[in-house]
């Protein structure tokens, strides 16, 4: 298969088939916490797409040009988490200076992303795939971007459902988070239907 085909396959795989939230259980805290209304879900989703793409690119460079040449691959966890934390800070400052309107809408969600395990997860997945080899730079960035899109998709669908759930007559003890999880279960079941696609 040619390169573009493989890249397209990676993208579809992370967006739909191996959706980060519904299949790999990454980034559940914001998924449950911020999906109460559609606007904040979309805001969070955009911030995550941006940070994940950037993080994939930066951690790839750090891993291949810093950790491997110096033979300090065992420091990968510390290196990656610090890189991501710094990156989130820088992105926050840049957006604040250059695009105040965007900052207004993303503002509160940006710092939260540091502890979003999906970001560290995609960075680790880029270097440690099932075959044990490192993805190329372009593929890493595509996988990061796709994972962000998949997260946003799941989050957007969920927020739409939850807005309706607010009005529904749910048993008292299932109100809020429990019913959100059961809904997520049904969504995951639907997404499981894509699993034969690739």
């Amino acid at each position, binding site marked *: 298969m040619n390169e573009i085909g493989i890249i397209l396959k990676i993208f579809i795989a992370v967006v739909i088939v191996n959706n980060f939230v*519904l*299949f*790999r*259980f*990454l*980034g*559940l*805290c914001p998924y*449950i*916490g911020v999906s109460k209304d559609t606007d904040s879900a979309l805001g969070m989703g955009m911030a995550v797409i941006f940070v994940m793409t950037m993080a994939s690119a930066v951690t790839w460079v750090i891993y291949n040009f810093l950790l491997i040449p110096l033979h300090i691959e*065992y*420091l*990968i*966890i*510390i290196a990656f*988490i*610090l890189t991501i*934390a710094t990156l989130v800070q820088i992105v926050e400052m840049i957006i604040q200076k250059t695009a105040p309107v965007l900052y207004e809408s993303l503002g509160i969600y940006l710092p939260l992303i*540091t*502890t*979003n*395990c999906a970001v*560290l*997860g995609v960075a*680790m*997945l880029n270097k*440690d795939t099932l075959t044990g080899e490192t993805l190329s730079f372009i593929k890493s960035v595509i996988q990061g971007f796709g994972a962000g899109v998949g997260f946003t998709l799941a989050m957007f669908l969920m927020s739409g459902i939850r807005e309706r759930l607010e009005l529904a007559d749910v*048993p*008292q*003890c*299932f*109100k809020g*988070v*429990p*019913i*959100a*999880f*059961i809904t*997520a*279960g*049904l969504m*995951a*079941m639907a*997404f*499981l239907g894509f699993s034969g696609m690739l």
Partner: protein
Amino acid sequence: MKKLSITAEFFKGFIRENPIFCLYLGLCPALATSSSVKNALGMGLSTTAVLIASNITISMLISILRLTLNDNFFNKIQQIRIPMFIVVIASFVTVVDFVLKGYFPALSKELGLFVPLIVVNCIILGRAEAFASKNNVVLSFVDALGMGLGFTLSLSLLGTVREILGAGQFMGLSVFGENFKPAIIFVLAPGAFLTIGFLMGFFHHISSLHKKG
């Protein structure tokens, strides 16, 4: 400072402040690694080890800094405490990752990505920020032990339900005999969401009954 009793700090992690069912912290590893009781126990105990080590270290670090530095400088240090905590936690996670790879290679392979992801488990940073940085070493240790065991117990509960329904087994032993047809969906992703949803509903119901009297 309010006096805190050791037993109360130990037991709060089990029911009242159970990290998963009541505080909704650490959900990602809880769902991802609870497909069998063995994985759930492995993940729970690894997290507990990191939690205890980081809580003790951070509590000591903060106490020493408070004693040795003058107030002005200490307040400045306080502003960069979160990156400091993360580095401490990441170091311990690296240690646990290598211990698992060395001594329990099969378990390490099963847990996979979720061992390095202990770093971003909200429970650990949450306890460091909310408890260890404000209390002494003994209390921090007890708090970490209680929270960690509460987390392990919740994971095992999830794992038990999912393994029995999804594979008809408990700890790898067959429960229902040959003719039982397991509902495989429970060891897959949707089953994890459904199980945790129903267990949370159950916990809410119990606590609302307690409140009524």
